[in-house]
């Protein structure tokens, strides 16, 4: 199943470590600003809209081309 992993910027290093430890060092991460839990819904919607092109890119790019293209710059 095509899957895009999203996380907030604060958790990006942790997500990268987890992906690496589990054998997926080049897993693309779609990173959104932190925090969002306490932000107004309109702001969070903006984060989602901004992240959408990256999500679509991850879901539609063939796996072999995704390798090494971490969205968090890792």
């Amino acid at each position, binding site marked *: 199943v095509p899957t895009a992993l999203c996380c907030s910027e*604060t*958790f990006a*290093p*942790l997500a990268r*470590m*987890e992906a690496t*430890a*589990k054998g997926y060092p080049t897993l693309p991460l779609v990173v959104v600003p932190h925090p969002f839990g306490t932000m107004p819904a309109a702001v969070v919607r903006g984060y989602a809209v901004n992240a959408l092109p990256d999500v679509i890119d991850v879901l539609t790019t063939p796996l072999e081309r995704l390798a090494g293209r971490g969205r968090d710059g890792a």
Partner: protein
Amino acid sequence: MGTVTARARVLDVPGDGEGVNRHFLEQGWTDGLPIVPPTEAAVAAMLDWTDRDPAEALGAMPPEWAPATVEGVAINAVMAGCRPEYFPVVLAAVRAVLDPDYNLYGIQATTNPVTPFLVVNGPVRGELGINGGAGCLGPGWPANATIGRAVRLCLLNLGGGRPGVLDRATHGQPGKYTMCIAENEEENPWGPLHVHRGFAAATSTVTVLAPCGTQNIIDQCSTTAQSLLMTLCHAAAYVGSNNIFLGGEPTLVLCPEHAALLHRGGFTRRDVARFLYDHARTALAAFSPENVEGMLRRRRPRLFDGLPGHFLVPIAEAPEHFHLIVAGGPGPHSLFMPSFGQTTRAITVPIERPARRP
């Protein structure tokens, strides 16, 4: 027995103890406090207190998922200042936190201030001088202080849970340096925690819990069990506690005076837990609309969907989810310890002694 892995390498650090400490601090291998240099001799003395292979991996420790070897645990136990005879307790505690049901990954990586809290039961308490009486949470008790610190150093150095990096705690808490007590079994009128959890009284165990802190509950006036329980219930059921939002296993550390009052009133351990389940509650109307929706209804719709504002929200989903421990000395103070929520469970592990005592 777990997977056998490579042994640790020996470092040649020039200088005296101060130089070693500076090197370890610069490498990020400490909790910020001075350590005892883990020389080969000191680590070997620690390893004499287990029959396990030093290269045995007890499990992969998150969030870096590196193998936690028996030797690795021994090195950190030396660094923490443990006497060699404490090592079986440290090993048991590390085995406990590695149990998948404990969810060490979440506990290490969360913004929540949760930390392993070790409760030691059985004869080993007296043998090692682990304090369960006055001032047991510290300071001043070498076994309590160093056993808890050894576990924390393992979480830092074997698990990679560096604060602000992979440990994402907003503040952390003082208990993240060390948090270890014995249960005051002699003053627990309902019998020891480990017996309640299915072990023989003569077996020594470590139970690991995951509290986000200690909240003092003072009650020096109540003269009946019901009156005291009213205080305990109100103190535990506050909006903003992990358990009222997330369920899970809240812990009450009762002082001997409070435990005795409850017992005199005819309350069994089960009765106390039942009372807490029934009455440690807060009305749905006390929560903000966003929290009713986001923290209660969306997470546990089965419990909260469509309920009116006067409905009472419990802090656990069943009476048996409450942990009741007796510890401390004289005084009218009990402690409420909210847990990490439903994603962690208390784990009890028996302490292994070496076949031949060193």
